[in-house]
């Protein structure tokens, strides 16, 4: 290893300068300013290597390396922890509410479909409670859609789905109003408008809403994975710093016959603290985020899917009666949805216990009651007792009617979903608290470690003067 440049600042320890080979020197000095600039790091690197062969030089290199490593660890660790905190806060403040918004879009639109069909089955003028339920559904769908749209920016798939819903929804409400107008005048074309609206809802809008919900759920899951993974790079840096500190102390003990170097011991202590604090805090936080998923968002997802399937099945039950004999396709749809939501309810029961579990139990009981009523309704309708079938299906005052059972089922599911969301929020909020002061703590400890290294190495360097 040779060099033509002797830097004035470099420590000149004992030992003889190796003979200088002449060849590269004139060439280098003759090179243009820019080419010379390129050579600077190479030159510096060589001079560092050269001085590292001598004890004081080597000590300086070790000291500088350790300080740099400590500061790097501090910066990387602080950023990683702050990033983690940001991710968790984003989960609480944005991601979860947005997933709830997209599920609200889906649910309220399915419910609007069911409610408008329900209103058609009622003879005479539309009951005010059905009218206001439909109005509420549409208003909620619109508000939730605006919320979901605000987040779809940059996610082409989600933006597509929001676009489809946003374009379809006004058309749907227009058709429903047209159906109402005709219905009020006693014109049978009103039922055809209702069916056209329902076709638009089922074939275009609801599939897009379902896709949007799935996209948002995926994004929630991804962010939870981000927030519960182990920060390997930071961990390697911390362990590397710790190893280097210990190795340096062993080296110093061997060469100076002194057992302890206070500065380096302080640095080691600070690093160990970073390691222990960071590991414990991150482990606790990861566990809490995971438990927020297991007890919160995952069961909520299952419940939401169960509820959507149930609402759609309810709409099918209505449309079968609206179609009156021409509704075989709707009934087939109902039969396909039935195992889906009963299966999902069973799955949710397996995931939840306590208050949420009790709500799912209630939901299951009412789902079974509804399904057996549905069989009666179908038997009545197929047996010619159409008006009895309609009464049993839509009249909420009939105690064992479909409307009452479905209402209770839906209510129990809403309660269970709210409990699950609360659990998610509690766990995730606690996960955030587990990281309290960790980011500034790492920064301070890293500075302490760097300071300790500086002190410790400087003490040893002084002995050479």
């Amino acid at each position, binding site marked *: 290893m040779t060099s033509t440049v002797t830097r004035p600042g470099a420590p000149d320890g004992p030992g003889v300068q190796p003979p200088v080979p002449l060849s590269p020197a004139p060439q280098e000095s003759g090179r243009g300013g820019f080419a010379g600039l390129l050579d600077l790091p190479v030159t510096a690197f060589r001079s560092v290597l050269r001085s590292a062969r001598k004890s004081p030089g080597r000590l300086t290199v070790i000291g500088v390396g350790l300080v740099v490593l400590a500061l790097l660890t501090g910066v990387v660790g602080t950023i990683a922890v702050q990033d983690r905190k940001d991710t968790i806060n984003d989960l609480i403040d944005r991601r979860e509410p947005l997933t709830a918004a997209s599920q609200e879009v889906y649910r309220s639109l399915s419910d609007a479909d069911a409610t408008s069909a329900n209103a*058609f089955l009622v*003879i*005479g003028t539309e009951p005010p409670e059905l009218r206001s339920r439909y109005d509420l559904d549409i208003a909620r769908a619109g508000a939730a859609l605006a919320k979901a749209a605000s987040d779809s920016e940059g996610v082409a798939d989600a933006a597509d789905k929001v*676009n489809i819903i946003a*374009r379809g929804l006004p*058309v*749907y409400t227009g*058709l429903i109003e047209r159906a109402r107008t*005709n*219905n*009020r*005048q*006693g*014109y*049978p*074309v*009103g*039922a*055809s*408008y209702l*069916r*056209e*609206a329902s*076709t*638009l809802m089922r*074939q275009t809008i609801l599939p897009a809403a379902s896709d949007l919900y799935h996209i948002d759920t995926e994004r929630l899951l991804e962010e939870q994975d981000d927030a519960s993974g182990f920060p390997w790079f930071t961990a390697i840096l911390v362990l590397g710093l710790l190893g280097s500190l210990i190795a340096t102390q062993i080296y110093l003990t061997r060469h100076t016959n002194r057992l302890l170097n206070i500065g380096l011991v302080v640095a080691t202590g600070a690093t160990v603290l970073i390691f222990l604090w960071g590991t414990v805090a991150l482990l606790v936080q990861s566990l809490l985020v995971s438990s927020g998923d297991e007890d919160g968002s995952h069961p909520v997802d299952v419940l939401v899917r169960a509820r959507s399937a149930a609402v759609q099945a309810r709409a099918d039950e209505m449309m079968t009666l609206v*179609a*009156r*004999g*021409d509704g075989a396709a709707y009934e087939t749809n109902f039969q396909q949805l039935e195992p889906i939501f009963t299966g999902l309810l069973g799955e949710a029961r397996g995931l939840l216990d306590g208050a949420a579990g009790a709500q799912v139990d209630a939901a299951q009981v009412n789902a079974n009651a509804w399904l057996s009523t549905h069989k009666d309704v179908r038997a009545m309708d197929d*047996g*010619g007792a*159409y*008006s009895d079938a*309609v009464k049993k299906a839509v009249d909420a005052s009939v105690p064992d009617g479909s409307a009452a059972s479905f209402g209770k089922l839906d209510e129990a599911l809403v309660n269970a979903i709210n409990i699950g969301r609360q659990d998610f929020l509690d766990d995730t909020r606690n996960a955030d608290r587990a990281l309290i002061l960790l980011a500034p703590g790492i920064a301070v400890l890293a500075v302490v470690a760097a300071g300790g290294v500086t002190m410790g190495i400087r003490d040893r360097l002084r002995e050479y003067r």
Partner: protein
Amino acid sequence: MKTPFIRIGGLRGDAGGGTSGAPSLRDPLDGIARRRRCPREGTPENPLRCKPPSSQQAAAAAYKIPKRLAAVVAAVGLLLAGCGSAGTPVDPAPVGHVQAPEPDGVGGLEGAAAGGQAGNCDTRSLAPSSAIPAGSTMAKIKQRGRLIAGVDQTTYLFGFLNPSTGNLEGFDIEIVKQLATALFGSWQGHVQWTAIPSSQRENVLKNNTVDVVVRTYSITCSRLRDINFSSTYYQAGQRVLVPRNSGVRGLADLGARKVCATKSSTSLTAIAQAPSRPIPVSVNNWSDCLVLLQQGQVDAISTDDVILAGMAKQDPNLEVVGDRFTQENYGVGIPKGQDDMVRWVNSVLDGVRSNGTWQQNYNEWIAPVLGPASPPSVSYQ
């Protein structure tokens, strides 16, 4: 984009050799770029030499902050100019083709009833007989306690669901009530109404889901191969329903325009076979045709005048035009093989036509729209 290149040229000239550039004096931006460089080029003692003779520049030089601001603007301008065209404004929400909502199951000619009224078969029904012997089809229905009738709930005036009462009403519905009354003494509680789309009329009879189909059902040779028909209880003819201001006077004016009818109806076939070659559009129910016409997705509806009259009654902007160009004989559809049922239904229909019930029914539903008429004359095999 000529000026940006001039500006860049001027700047380069400055950077390289001070005064070697020949900047356009009319371009204030270029001037600023030059003046900023002047002191560095070593002519601080005579700032006037650097000052471009433009009034804007003089103003900019007078104040320090505007000068800097102007310099920044100039720099940004140069940067943008260097990047080439600024492009066109972006449409934030591009919307191309808008798909109008459609009723479920909109199609074209597929499934049109083969062969219309024309055919060389005997469309006359079997001679009536009012007897209900034990073991006959009627006896089984009587034992069951209810007559299962396939009807329409979307054809205003003939078979429709009255939204204000929740009951099925219309001319066809009255015929079913007459059949049930003849069998049970009263129709109340003895009829199971099954609303069927017109495409399902043959199917529900072939698999015996219903006892009778009374649903604006034209007697045709091709249908007679699969099912039985009663005698004719109503005579209709195909015409055209169009918006009042459309100027269309019949199918002849509808070449290459969309005309709606229900799937597997004789009307759909008649539209497809019209010499003017309209484009047939098929749907499940007649009301769906009205939906399409009101939404402007079809230009006309063509089918039996009674059905069209029902639609015109729901929308005063529509009118029935042209002459009848087919003759449709409505009969009660009965499953193949049930000859006893055919004869019994014919005897009931004979009574309906002759005892004034038909006239009363017609006057109630049809006469207000299509004017007076009398029962069709019937002959048997």
